[in-house]
């Protein structure tokens, strides 16, 4: 049954449906509906909600609960996610599954509370110290926010790795009809023999990320890298919209991709063969698909983003081996501003495709 849900609420309820029974958060706009929802909903399902004293503490509670075998989640927005980076690095190093939601707002610093995609690098290239990656999902509708949050818990367990839901203030706040995936029976989820939950005198389980011997740590790094390689094979997700014969390909994710769909339709109406390529996973990034498009009709790629030139770097990486040397440009609004479909269409029509977002 579809319900009218706010993006933030859909994320929260989908997490419950996926068996999340431990949620730890700290207030920050524009994701407050998630901890608020969890504060009463966890009681109904026999789970735990703690309003932590900081994001630093919340992510470490996730480390504890996830390491002890529970499906655990935290949510925040940009400044708070910066504070979580130390914990995320430990979680990745210790291979603890969990889900982290970032409803991005504009920065740097305290920035503003309006939508943004300016944490793209932080989410996809590591963020915290050390070499690690997270699976990063970028939903572009309330329904997809629910579906990907649900899926995130399963993939986190599969890889024993943190998974991030990278949304923005607009996705978190907007209301749309959405169906929450069917709730799992928490007791029937696969047992985690590696989890530290008391060993009854049996084999000791240690959740840690310290490896003082360089060879041991190198082997651990290699093991982690193998997981990230497997993610590239199994988990890369994307959507094509009218790209078959497209000469101009807009590349956008999340809420911006919806704006771009409308822009594509407008451009098509005025005779320009435009299409949209939408990465759904930002790590792994679907580089191969971009390469394929450049082998076909695409002559121009435009990264449409709410950041000052972050997504475009991955678009360029996707075109690294391209023989056709397509033109690459960017159209961005930042600071909490969001472009309109007309703005994007106008930019393409102008023919003045640039690599700097500043006009």
């Amino acid at each position, binding site marked *: 049954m579809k319900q009218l849900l706010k993006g933030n609420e859909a994320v929260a309820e989908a997490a419950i449906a996926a068996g999340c*029974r*431990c949620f*730890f958060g700290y207030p920050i706009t524009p994701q407050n509906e998630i901890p608020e929802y969890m504060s009463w909903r966890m009681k109904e399902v026999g789970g*735990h909600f*703690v309003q*932590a*004293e*900081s994001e*630093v*503490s*919340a992510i*470490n*509670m*996730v*480390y*504890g*609960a*996830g*390491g*002890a*075998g*529970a499906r*655990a989640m935290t949510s925040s927005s940009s400044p708070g996610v910066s504070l979580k980076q*130390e*914990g995320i690095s*430990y979680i990745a190093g*210790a291979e603890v599954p969990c889900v982290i939601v970032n409803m991005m707002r504009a920065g740097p610093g305290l920035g503003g509370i309006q939508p943004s995609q300016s944490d793209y690098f932080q989410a996809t290239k590591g963020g915290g110290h050390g070499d690690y990656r997270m699976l990063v999902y970028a939903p572009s509708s309330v329904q997809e926010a629910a579906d990907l949050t649900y899926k995130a818990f399963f993939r986190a367990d599969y890889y024993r790795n943190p998974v991030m839901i990278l949304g923005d203030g607009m996705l978190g706040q907007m209301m749309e009809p959405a169906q929450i995936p069917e709730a799992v029976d928490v007791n029937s989820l696969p047992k985690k023999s590696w989890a*530290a*939950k*008391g*060993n*009854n*005198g049996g084999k*000791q*389980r*240690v*959740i*840690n*990320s*310290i490896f003082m011997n360089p060879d041991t740590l190198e082997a651990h790094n290699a093991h982690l890298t193998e997981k990230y390689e497997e993610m590239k094979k199994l988990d890369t997700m994307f959507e094509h919209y009218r790209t078959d014969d497209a000469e101009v390909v807009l590349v956008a994710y999340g809420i911006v991709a919806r704006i771009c769909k409308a822009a594509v339709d407008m451009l098509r109406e005025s005779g320009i063969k435009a299409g949209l390529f939408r990465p759904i996973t930002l790590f792994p990034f679907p580089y191969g698909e971009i390469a394929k498009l450049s082998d076909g009709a695409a002559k121009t790629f435009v990264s449409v983003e709410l950041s000052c030139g972050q997504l475009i770097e991955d678009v360029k990486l996707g075109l690294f081996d391209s023989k056709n040397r397509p033109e690459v440009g960017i159209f961005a609004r930042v600071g909490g501003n969001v472009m309109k479909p007309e703005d994007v269409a106008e930019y393409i029509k102008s023919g003045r495709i640039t690599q700097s977002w500043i006009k």
Partner: protein
Amino acid sequence: MDKIVFTKPKLLNDTPMHYCPGCTHGIVHRLIAEALEELGDTDHVIGIAPVGCAVFAYNYFTCDMFQAAHGRAPSVATGVKRANPDSTVFVYQGDGDLASIGMAEIVHAATRGENMTVIFINNGIYGMTGGQMAPTTLPGQKTTTSQGGRNPLEHGNPIKICEMLSTLTGPAYIARTSVHDVKAVRNTREAIKKGFRMQREKKGFSLIEILSTCPTNFHMSPVAALEYVKTVGCEAYPLGVYKDVENGF
């Protein structure tokens, strides 16, 4: 008839400890294991190791363990405990870990009354990183970052954790003990045991601050370091029970 009068607790293994000669970390590890064993509470124990000299504590205990980021052990323990409310959780932290970088985490775990037992090793110095000033370093005490001795006007004053945390309503039991001699060690074992018993009875947060030595960075012999804790340490940090809900305070 032969009678066994002394055995190693099951919760400890045979790995030789990496602690310096005369360091009291090892004594406290043993007391934790003994206390849990005496309570018959060894099946569902989960320990949280800090960043500090005890970072490798999981090498010596046989129970399940976590290694936490610097200062974050009380938050990790909160997550563990919420995921497994019937487990017995101990948090092991040094004074840099707990009273400096982890001050927010310990205060809030205490004020929430998280049902866990914190073993707080106060040796007045940063051991692992080579003897820098800790939040608990005493006025006049020489460290590598207070080379002329800690000067309150320049470096601020030491923090008294038991006194501070006992102002909160949340904690159930807060005590300061020491391990400078046999009697002190026995008292410490009893205090730890009480903390664990109260945890099992779901009475809430307990913290046992244990005055400890770091002979290496005190630049003292093990015996002199114990004497220093007995005299100077115990004077600056009075031993005693600071909060005990079972006794109405």
